[in-house]
């Protein structure tokens, strides 16, 4: 079996747009290499891991697609993952690569952008916008547009975290966003917001619940289902109003007899 041809095509077309393939097998690393890597043309992500107890399936190949938040949005045979679907799933993601050749004046900006340093990329864009050359200006606008998409995605993530009351997620998003946009006005704004958030009691509680859940989650695989359930239920009882508390309650159900 091995390689599914259309995976490579999907990877080639959508990887730059934020679509990541992880072909997972629990087999021997040498076997995996001989089948997909050595002398083969697969350039999509391949992983050795045993996920059978987490991602149950009665047959392979089988796949699951997770959205940017880690939520499952598709489950079934890989052939069901069509270009149309991937197009739809990735259309709101922020690009991580610049998909066309830009003026050499923007070389530093493109490099910073692809490295995720939006603060620096914005500075380079601002400088290029001062250029007399219209083509350079246009390219600067283009790069600015790509950067703006990242602002939009972060803003949307923050809004959804606020809406669901997941203050930990909000904090993490603010931290990540502020870091990526370090040195820019936008970055400073997010940094200030994070400082305010960290002062609130609601945030402290939500964070405690999330930390406890993370600790238990790391050990779940090695626990008996009954003790896993007890640990999870305890967190759910202690922090019923937090997202981690709710997630613990949901997870506990998975381990219920």
């Amino acid at each position, binding site marked *: *079996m*091995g390689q*599914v041809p259309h*995976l490579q095509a999907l990877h080639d077309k959508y990887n730059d747009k*934020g*679509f*990541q*393939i*992880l*072909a*997972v*097998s629990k*087999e021997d690393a040498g*076997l*995996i*290499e*001989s*089948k*997909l*890597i050595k002398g083969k043309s*697969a*350039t999509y*992500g*391949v*992983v*050795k*891991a*045993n*996920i059978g*107890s*987490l*991602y*149950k*399936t009665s047959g*392979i*190949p*089988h*796949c*699951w*697609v*997770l*959205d*940017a*938040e*880690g*939520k*499952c*949005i*598709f*489950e079934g045979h*890989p052939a069901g*993952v069509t270009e149309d679907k*991937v197009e739809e799933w*990735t259309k709101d993601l*922020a690009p991580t690569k610049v998909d066309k050749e830009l003026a050499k004046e923007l070389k530093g900006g493109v490099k910073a952008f692809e490295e995720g340093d939006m603060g620096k990329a914005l500075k380079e864009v601002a400088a290029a916008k001062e250029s007399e050359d219209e083509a350079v200006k246009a390219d600067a606008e283009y790069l600015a547009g790509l950067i703006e998409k990242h602002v939009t*995605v972060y803003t949307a993530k923050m809004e959804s975290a606020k809406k669901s009351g997941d203050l930990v997620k909000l904090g993490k998003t603010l931290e990540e966003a502020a870091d990526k946009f370090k040195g820019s006005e936008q970055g400073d704004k997010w940094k200030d917001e994070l400082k305010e958030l960290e002062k609130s009691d609601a945030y402290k509680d939500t964070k405690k619940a999330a930390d406890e859940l993370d600790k238990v*989650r790391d050990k779940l695989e090695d626990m008996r*289902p009954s003790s896993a359930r007890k640990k999870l239920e305890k967190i759910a009882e202690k922090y019923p109003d937090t997202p981690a508390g709710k997630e613990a309650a949901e997870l506990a159900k*998975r381990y219920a*007899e």
Partner: protein
Amino acid sequence: MKLAGSVALLLLTAVVFAGSLSAVAPGDQGPNFKFDKSWNIEDGMTELSQFRGKVVMIESWATW
């Protein structure tokens, strides 16, 4: 009667085992897992959760 009871118990056990961990379906949060080894992915990526922000296709396959 005794036999029927044993069969019922056996069936029940089978059902309990099958249902102890339900499969991941659309709408569920995808459980995290760590990689024992990886190819063709960025250095430093060692577990699924590091791919948040991307759309991830987890494809379960085997060489046979």
